[in-house]
Structure formats: structure tokens, C-alpha cells
């Protein structure tokens, strides 16, 4: 079922440039625009789909070897911010926990841990993804082929420098406590890389999968529009 799915459909992990599809989708990414109610429903649906996928699919590393992967830690390679990172993780470890607990990349935040709030957003093969809802092993190297290209907020700009989106968030005070901010910045970055002239209404749709408690949305709306202009300026 999962193998036939349109790889670009919402709810799927997009293929990387080598066309490597990752079939195991135990905590499948759900990222839908619009209200949280829609996302909540979709999460339930995805959960059902997963149950099927998990019993019928095994990681390619195990295929043919007759070897069962896990439940203990297994070595794997993750491609993060252009670097191959070797880690040894239980197969159940989410991409979010792999980043935060094993690679000290703590920009992606753990907030709902259930595909609702977007604080853990990273960019996987150019699409924004809730990293709490992807297993690290799903996006790791497999079968000698490189895994997904994962970008975290730490990869947006070198330390001490600000990506145009981050700078725009500062300028427009699109952050208070800041705990949701990296997720917003990543969603916004992924969006602006493919949408160059968003209207405020489109921004509301695009960032509908990220939640803030302090109520920084007014600043975020302005920040996205301003960042769009500065990113366009950079390309021209």
C-alpha cells in the first residue's frame, strides 16, 4: 500500500534525489495545511495505515539476510546538514530524539511529540516534516544507498550568522519564549524555497501546522512576507 503511494502526497516522506523511497512508515509524517482539527483526524488515519505497514514491511538492510532489526540498538547513518552521521539507535527512536538526544542538535523541539504542533519541524528531502513522527531508521542510509537529506535549523546558517528567515523573525519580533520558533523558521524556510510571493492568506495556510502558545502569530505573518522579499533579493 505504502509503496504505491504518490511520494509527493501529503503524509509521505518524499524520495531523495536518488529516488530512494522509504517504505517503513511507523510514525508516518503528517503535515497538512489548515486547522489542527484536520491534522488530528489525519493523524488517526495515518496511525491505522502504519499498523499495516509495520507488520508487512521491514527495512531493506534486513531484506534477504533473514536478520531481524532491533529491538536493540542498530548502527545507521543519517545525512544531516550535508554530513553523514553514524549513530547506533534502537529502531523505535524517532528522528527528533535521534537529533536531540544522540546528535545534540536541539534546535528542533519536543513539544507535543505527536505530530500536532510543528515545533520539531525539520526539512527532509526539501519538504517540511514533523521529526517526532518519523523514525530515524526510516530516513537512514539503506542498501548502500544514501538516506534522506535532512536539514535542521542548525544547518540553515553557520553559527553566528542568521538565515534570512531567522533574521526576519528577529526584526518582526516573531518570537517570545522562542520554543516554537525553530519549527516555524523551518516550516517557513521550506515553504519560501518553493513559494516566492506568498500572500498573508497563503502564509496562514502554509504555517497552519505550527502552534505557538505566547501568541507570536502577528509577528510571524509579517516575518514570512519580509523573508520572502529578502530571499528573492538574494536569488536575483
Amino acid at each position, binding site marked *: 500500500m505504502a509503496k504505491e503511494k504518490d511520494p509527493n502526497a501529503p503524509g509521505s516522506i518524499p524520495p531523495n534525489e536518488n529516488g530512494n523511497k522509504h517504505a517503513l512508515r511507523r510514525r508516518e509524517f503528517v503535515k497538512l495545511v489548515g486547522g489542527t482539527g484536520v491534522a488530528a483526524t489525519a493523524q488517526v488515519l495515518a496511525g491505522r495505515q502504519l499498523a499495516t505497514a509495520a507488520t508487512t514491511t521491514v527495512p531493506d538492510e534486513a531484506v534477504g539476510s533473514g536478520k531481524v532489526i532491533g529491538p536493540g540498538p542498530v548502527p545507521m547513518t543519517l545525512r544531516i546538514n550535508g554530513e553523514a552521521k553514524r549513530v547506533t539507535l534502537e529502531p523505535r527512536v524517532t528522528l527528533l530524539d535521534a537529533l536531540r538526544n544522540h546528535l545534540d542538535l536541539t534546535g528542533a523541539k519536543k513539544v507535543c*511529540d*505527536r505530530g500536532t504542533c510543528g515545533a520539531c519541524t525539520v526539512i527532509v528531502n526539501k519538504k517540511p516534516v514533523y521529526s517526532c513522527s518519523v523514525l530515524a531508521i526510516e530516513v537512514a542510509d539503506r542498501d548502500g544507498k544514501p538516506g534522506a537529506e535532512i536539514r535542521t535549523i542548525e544547518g540553515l*546558517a553557520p553559527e553566528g550568522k*542568521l538565515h534570512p528567515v531567522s533574521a526576519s523573525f528577529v526584526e518582526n519580533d*516573531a518570537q*517570545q519564549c*522562542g520554543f516554537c520558533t525553530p519549527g516555524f523558521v523551518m516550516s517557513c524556510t521550506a515553504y519560501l524555497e518553493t513559494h516566492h510571493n506568498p500572500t498573508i492568506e497563503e502564509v496562514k495556510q502554509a504555517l497552519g501546522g505550527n502552534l*505557538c*502558545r505566547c501568541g507570536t*502569530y502577528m509577528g510571524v505573518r509579517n516575518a514570512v512576507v519580509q523573508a520572502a522579499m529578502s530571499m528573492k533579493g538574494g536569488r536575483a
Partner: protein
Amino acid sequence: MADYHWPPTDKCNLIGRRIARLDGPWKSSGRIKYSYDMNRPNMLHAKMVFSPYAHAKVVSIDTSAAEKMPGVKAIDIITEPGKEVFWAGHEVAAVAAETEEQARDAARRVQVRYEKLPHLVSDVEPSKAGEHTKQLAEQTDGNPDQALQQAEVTSEGEYGVPVITHCCLETHGQVAEWDGDNLTVYASTQNVSGIPGEFVRAKIADSADKVRVLTPVMGGGFGSKFGADTWGLACARLAKKTGRPVKLMLERDQELMAAGARPSMYAKVKVGAKRDGTLTGWQSESWGTGGPDAQGGAPSIPYVVRIPDRRIRHTTVLTNIGPARAWRAPNHPQMCLITMSALDDLAAKLGMDPVEMLQKNIDMTGQLSKTYSAELEKAAELMDWKKKWHPRGDKTPGSIKRGLGVSIHTWGGRGHDSNCNCVIQPDGSLSASLGSQDLGTGTRTVIGIVTAETMGLPLEAVKVNIGDSKYPADGASGGSTTVGGVSSSTRRAATAALNQLLEKVAPSLNAKPEELEAVDGKIRVIGNPSRAISWKQACAKLGTTPITGVGQRSNDLISSGVGGAQMAEVSVDTETGQVYVDKLVAVQDCGLIIDLKTAESQVYGACIMGITYSLFEHKIMDEQTGRCLNADMEFYKLAGIGDFGEIVVHMMTGSGFDERGVIGLGEPPVISPGAAISNAVANAIGVRVPTLPLTPDKVLGALEKGAVA
């Protein structure tokens, strides 16, 4: 004794301007480490074991199976057998293991036997709560019976606000690490200076000066993060037992079940007026729950509009919903919703514009009456109220009904105790150090601005040191008390440091210290800019000894007591019951504003938080099991970026406001949205939806009831 005052606003380079927050780049680059992000060498992860029952006695705890689980290093018992737990989510034990996954697995294997006891989680009907109610004293002013009897018009209604949670995005928790008998706690707290003592009282640390709390940034508190909490103490004990750093952050479900709830408040109100709208009498029978303990006293209603003849009776319902914690502007949003809804219903009965009714009775608001009057006028202008307002019930055809609502509020906001050390180094570097914390409100930036303004330097010249209990003690950040506290102590410390510098520099400029000023990066003779030396040259005269200016909060730079008026415009779909806030106007005073940008952000944020509790938030309890049914973020809903329309913020500044000094701002703007939005919905659909949140089911229910009546 130096004279402490704020510079005139027209002379300010920084104070009152829109200045980007200092910690902005740290946050939006994802580089800054919150408590949740601390990965200390060799660190263990801990998870909580908590009660699944709303009320039970812990009979026994068997940790033997959990101890044998892979990676487990230590288990800490929080609630000993024999003791009771009072809510589902009550802390029982904590387990530390090598990985987060292992800790979670092992926590599930801790076998706790409970003896279930009767529970109560419903707060809507105090008469059914029996022994769980606590009657608070009745309070009567004037002669309400006579006033209501003689009133030409009376209105009766029932209004209420349910229990909601704080839902901080960074859950409660910390990393604890020992070095000998010194404890470092990386805590997500609103109370950096206040927490060390808790570890001593709990007999975990020998003395408070051996406990260091570090909180450079924190992911939201809203009143729920003042204490070390049971999990903080357990974390420190686990770290001690294992000799390794331990991270213990609550998981989302427990955060919503146990780590913060705002008390509910419901009321049956009768209010009377003369036919011209003059309010004459008030009577209310109110109740609410703050969890298992009685919280606070009777509400102060009618809120802001102090109708002279009034009687209030209040009952507290003791429930097993989880402990109440201060929630941004404790009690005020509830009192505001009840009062402003009742007044709005009365105005509707009189066929009167509610803004006119408030203006008519503005003297009852007391000493801020002129402020309220001006704020209502400004808000009406920004809302285009006069043109848009219609009597109750939108009579235009179609299923989408539009309406307007208004509310006013108040808050104190006097600065808390605060101490600042301002240090000028011979190399010209400058720092301000306080044991305060920045919750995301802009505290760090305010301290920087005040220091830089005092020294005539750019903001970048100041290093602000906060979020560390080794700095001079500062108050907890609650009740909008921080900005007044830190701005006052910082201004005094910076002035004291500057005065010492001027004394050192004066001889070289052939002037007396009092003839000098610090402006534009120079120390110069007042009125003679040519007799000047640069800041660096001035500091070089210190030789090898830095200057420390010490400042303590005092009342001369701050004040308290603000108003605020808000107006909401809503669209209600009478077929689906969906409410959409098209526009919210917030007009707010807070004395002298230090940073206009972060001040406005506070108000925008409060409006959005207000829209959220008005439309979505409700901690839903199951009466059978006593459990919270929506302890997650799918079903405990927060508004998203597209869930509302326009927000217009206007800060009252200039004459009449600036000279009052600095007053806190965090709480006041979060008070009125509930009332303004509820009133707007009533204005749109012609009937009152009695309780928040204004969810589709309740809107449709009110419409149905209204149609029958």
C-alpha cells in the same frame, strides 16, 4: 543621595523605541539551549510514574521489575505508600535510565497498588458537590436588595469560564547535576533566585548557596513555573543517587494533567440599572474550583465597574482535577467575563450601546476613570464602532452573523524586589547582572536598554547577565512585576555606576562631576559638547579597578494600576456554530514603556492567547474515571496562525502615562478578550452563549434555546 528619575522621553535614544529583543537571534537560529535541550556528559534520562486515578491511596510500590529493566540506574519514590494521591497525573515516582526510551519503558513497569477512593471532577453544579464545597464569606456593600428592587431594569444571567491549562510549550522540568555537594539545576523556571532554597528545605542540598539555578531562556511559564516542584526534587535526588546528571522533563500528557490549571469560575448574576443606563445594584452567587485545595478568596465582582450596592456569595468546589496554578492575570479573566457579560446583557435589555453604558458609569471605575474613558474612545475609533455597531442580533439575511463586543480591565503591576549590579570595566565594557529571568517577555532587552540609555551608549555595549541564581537576588516573574522591578533596580545601579565614573573623569575635564553627562558614547560637559572624552578614554581612567554600581528597586521609578479597553468583531456561522474573530482592538496603558516593540508583542500575544481561551480551551474531565480526556495537543486546542483575522494594538503613551514610571504589562491585555468576544457573539446571534469556550456545540445550543424562548 542621588536623584533617580527617568530621562524625559524626548531625550531618550532607546527608551520607548521599537527595539528588537536581544535574545532574538539565539532563538530564531535554534542555537540557544533551553533546559529541555541540555545534554550534559554522561547524562541519564528520567521519566515520571503518576497516578491513573483521580483519588486513591497508594498501598504499595514494587520497583523490582522496573529495576531489572535495561539501562535503569535509579528509582525515586515521591509518594510513599500510605499517602493519598488527589488527581490523575499525581506524581508517584521517577525512574532514571540510560536513554529516554528505557526510562519510559521502566516507568511503566513500576507496580503501584492503589486503593481507589471517591473522586469529584465536576465543578458545574456545586449543590451536587456535597462535602466538597467550601462556602466563603458573603460580602455586602450598601443595600443591594433595595437597589435591585428599585431598579427600573434588571437582567439576570449565568456566566462562566471552565478550568483551562497553561500548556507551556517547554514542559516543566530540569537537568540536575552534582559536583561534590554543589548542585546545578538547569531549570525551566520563572523564579531563578527563589528556587535554591527549596532544595535545602527538602534536605537535598546543605545550603542555598550550594545550589545554582541556570535559566538563560525558558519555553513559557504563564504563572505555572514558580517552584522546584516534586519532579525537580526527584530529579536532584536521582542525580545524587547515581552520581550522574539527570534530565527529567514532563511528557505532554502529564504537563496538561498536573502542571498547571486555571481555576474555573461560574456565577448567577442579577444586575439593575435606571432606564438611562446608570447601574444601581449587583448580586451574584458564584462558584468555581481550584483543584483539591481552596484557592484564594471571593472574587472581586462586579469587576472594574464597582456598582456601589452589591452582594457577592462565593463557593469553592474542591475537586480532583489537578492543582491550580497562577495563570496569567489570576482570577481577572474570569471576573471580567462574568461582569462584562452581565453588563452587556443589561445594555441589550435597555437597547443601549454597551460602550455608552460603560461611559455613562465610568466614575464607578474609580481613579482610572479618565484613562478608561480615553481608551474606550480610542478603541471605538480603531474599531469604527459607531458605524459598525447594531443592537443585539444581526438582522441582515444569511447564515453568517456579525457582531461587536467590548470589555475593560485592570491590573496592578508594581515592580517586585530587584537588585542589580552594574559594572564598568577599565576597558570600557559594561554589564548589568540580576538574578532575574526572561520568560519571553523581553526582560533581558529592557535591562539592556535601561543600562545603555543611562550610559549614553548603544544597546550592543551592554552585556546583560540574568538567568543565574549567582547574580543579585530578584523576584519571581509573575503578576507583571518584573519590568518594574528590573528597570528600577537597573536604572539605579547604572546611575550609581555612572556617577562614580563621572567623579573619576571630572578632573581631566576641569569640571565638577555634576556638570558632566554621558551622551552619544562620550562623557562631556553639559552644554559644552566640545569639552568631552570618549567612553573608552573615560573608563581607562579607572586604572585597574572596575566600578560597581548597586541598585535596588524602589518606588520612585515605577507605579502600579493600569486600565485597558478591548473590542472584538466576530462572524458566527449560525449553521455550523463556528465563531471567527475578524478583528480584535486592544488599547492599553502601562506607564512608561521601555521597549515599544516587545511591549506591543506582549499585547498581541495576550490577544491571541485570549482568543484561544475564548474559543478553544477547556480541560475536559471524565466524571467516571476522573481523568483528563484531552491531555494532548490534538484535543487541547491552541489557536493557529490562521484562526483569527486582524489584531490592532494601541499603546497609550505621552503625557499622563510616561511620567507615571514603569508598570507591568504581561497580565492586563489577556483579561478582556473572553468578555469582548463573548459579548460580540451575543451581539451577532442575539443570544448569550453563557460559558467559554464558545465552541460550535454551545453556540448552536444557545441558538436553539434562544429560538424556543
